[in-house]
């Protein structure tokens, strides 16, 4: 990426814009000036792009460590790598509040249902990172006891290493941010052909003809079983 350095506008110009913003907030700006102010300070985009930009810059990973990779995941939060610089430091202790699942370690076939359940409990939009060799391809534990993550759940990003250094995982998260911001259409549903499996509230399904075709319609008083 090319970095363009610009000289800051001179201070008098900055002060003038500050005063104009103050006037606008007071309601003192009239038509032409107001128009000029709005043109200078607004940026137009689509709602989807804006929301994906916000989502990609504020991941909340689930607090979920599986093995030795989890130590590196913790180190990623510490001062040296400090993932808080990018806004990803808010590890959530509940899958309901998290939107990234970092599968940090080997998953035994006994643990796989638990991991899958945690992923299913996360609210959409959600992403998963397979961290390290074991979660990606079983690594040195390529035997009867271990199962790779993408055998039982969708995985968005693979971080190689055994274990990956904290920098690698930070790089993986930044790559995931790139993917989310640049290609918002490439969610796991698009990649796995999962369209139509969204859970939709019954009221929404009644009002929106597009959502009415959804398979999983949640009705009041049920536990979320499909209609």
């Amino acid at each position, binding site marked *: 990426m090319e970095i363009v350095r610009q000289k800051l506008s001179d201070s008098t110009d900055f002060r003038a814009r500050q005063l104009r913003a103050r006037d606008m907030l007071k309601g003192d700006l009239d038509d032409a000036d107001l128009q000029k102010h709005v043109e200078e300070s607004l940026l137009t985009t689509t709602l989807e792009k804006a929301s994906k930009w916000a989502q990609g810059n504020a991941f909340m990973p689930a607090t979920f460590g599986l093995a030795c990779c989890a130590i590196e995941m913790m180190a990623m939060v510490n001062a040296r790598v400090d993932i808080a610089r990018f806004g990803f430091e808010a590890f959530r202790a509940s899958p309901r509040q998290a939107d990234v699942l970092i599968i940090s370690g080997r998953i035994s076939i*006994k643990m796989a249902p638990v991991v899958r359940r945690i992923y299913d409990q996360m609210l959409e939009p959600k992403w998963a990172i397979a961290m390290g060799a074991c979660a990606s*391809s079983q690594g040195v534990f*390529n035997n*009867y006891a*271990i199962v790779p993550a993408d055998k039982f759940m969708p995985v968005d990003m693979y971080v190689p290493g055994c274990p990956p250094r904290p920098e690698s995982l930070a790089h993986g998260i930044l790559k995931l941010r790139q993917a989310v911001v640049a290609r918002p259409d490439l969610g796991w549903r698009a990649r796995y052909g999962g369209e139509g499996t969204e859970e939709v509230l019954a009221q929404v399904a009644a009002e929106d003809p597009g959502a009415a075709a959804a398979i999983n319609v949640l009705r009041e008083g049920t536990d979320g079983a499909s209609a």
Partner: protein
Amino acid sequence: MPDATGLELIAQELRDRDADAVLGTLFYREQATILVHPNAVPATLEHLRGKGYTFLASLHGVDYFPEEPRLGVHYELLDMKRVDRLRVKTRVHTDVPHVPSVTPKWPTANHQEREAFDMFGIVFDGHPDLRRILMPEDYEGWPQRRDFPVGGEAILYTHNELNQPGWWK
């Protein structure tokens, strides 16, 4: 460890109690081992407890494939006053892999016998709760036996492909 003479004295004591108990002794690299008949394991361990080996440090299964009897159980005993270790081994066939449990007398053996059962299919008779401990309950097979397939994903290594003879074929 008892020295080689001490090991023979202990083995002779066990033979005096039960003539069929001891199948042999092994003194290798300063480590003393007594091989006993499976049925004599609880009585042997109790006798050794009386001689000061009061701590069962470890219990584990072994697969001696292709030797017969294939399966083995090792008991590592420790005398904590003299810091003296003694190993008791027993061997069973895969057809009838039955060993009397020592859990009633040595509570620490509970989970370790379950692990040996889980991994090797050695049945410990008299165990209060003999079921799988590490593998899923519905798992089939004994994964640490040496004739059990390793499993996992088949991997094709290509990094040294060009060094293999006849790579162009």
